[in-house]
């Protein structure tokens, strides 16, 4: 069943059908939220608030936009709210030296989770971190990213490029990367 069909079911009064939306999108939201806000506790708060706001505003969803992109927009706003409220991340990661982190990965086999990368993401300016996460964690187009963030496409491309450059700079003395 498509997201659109589930939404119609919910709007027709079947509240429990919304659980399918939650199951379908939670993992994707988690990929985004954890990497934007920098810790699981705040990410879960942002995700819960995002799903709740999406449910309340479900009738505002319009078919011309992918539901996942619409939900991501709500989630990013919640992440921004959480970030604005929380100062914890600054204290946690401020003094980390990238050379102390273990980046010794097999160049050919390296796939999947990369915990150290999440730490390095946290050293990026918020706008760059948000852009690179949306681009790759959610496979969004720059057009979709523009609608979500309110920034122009060229600005977003620049942010992604700068995010990569910054990450490279942080890792420049780390071998095997």
């Amino acid at each position, binding site marked *: 069943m498509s997201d659109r069909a589930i939404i119609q079911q*919910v*709007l027709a009064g079947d*509240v*429990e059908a*919304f*659980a399918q939306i*939650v*199951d379908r999108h*939670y*993992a994707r*939201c*988690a*990929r985004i*939220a*954890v*990497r934007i806000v920098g810790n*699981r506790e705040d*990410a*879960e708060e942002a*995700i*819960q608030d995002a*799903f*709740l*706001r999406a*449910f*309340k*505003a*479900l*009738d*505002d969803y319009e078919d011309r936009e992918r539901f996942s992109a619409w939900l991501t927009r709500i989630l990013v706003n919640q992440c921004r709210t959480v970030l604005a409220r929380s100062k914890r991340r600054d204290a946690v990661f401020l003094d980390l030296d990238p050379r102390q982190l273990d980046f010794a*990965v097999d*160049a050919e086999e*390296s*796939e*999947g*989770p*990369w915990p150290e*990368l999440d730490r390095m993401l946290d050293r990026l300016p918020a706008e760059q971190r948000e852009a*690179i*996460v949306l681009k*790759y*964690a959610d*496979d969004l187009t720059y057009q979709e990213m523009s609608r979500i963030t309110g920034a122009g496409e060229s600005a977003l491309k620049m942010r992604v490029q700068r995010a*990569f450059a910054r*990450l*490279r700079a942080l*890792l420049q003395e780390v071998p095997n*990367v």
Partner: protein
Amino acid sequence: MSEFFERRVARALRSDVPLGDELARRRVMERVRHAAAEGHPVRRRGEPWYRRQRHSIVGLTLAAGIGGLSTLSAALPGAQRDAGARLGAVVIGDTVVGTLHDTLRLVRLMFDAPDAQRVEVAGDFNGWGASPTPLVRDERSHHWSVTLALHDGEHRYAFVVDETRWTPDPRADRAVQGGDGRIYSLLSLSRAAN
């Protein structure tokens, strides 16, 4: 290093994170069911922008139909109360806007939203979204409030939270359903209320 590094980063960002177990998803649905019990999501297709905002929980305490200015002024902040008494005027938000007379009532609205940054009331008495009246936050109680001067008659209204979320008032005496299927808070003022 460059191309490999970018591919490596992209792959890592696409990988799942260990978050969102069954308990977390149940918590989402518990909140969803609670919201559903409060009337969400509300259908509002085809309405103007101020009626197509997301809803949230708000409250209103009504002190309508109060008989005399001395009684009414007790609900006002000091400076406003003084101005009101001196000028025979009433207050909307922070502004002295008119003269109190037999067909003008003072209504105090309250709103519980500790996380809101801005709360306004929009209704037929202020042009709906054209000129919403801001509520003032009490830093101790976190209640938002505003005192309105309204003429006798029926008034429809709603709150606008953070300039985006529009909601009827669950604590209003009455609510009406418009032809569009939406619920409006309804307030009736008359001399009989005194």
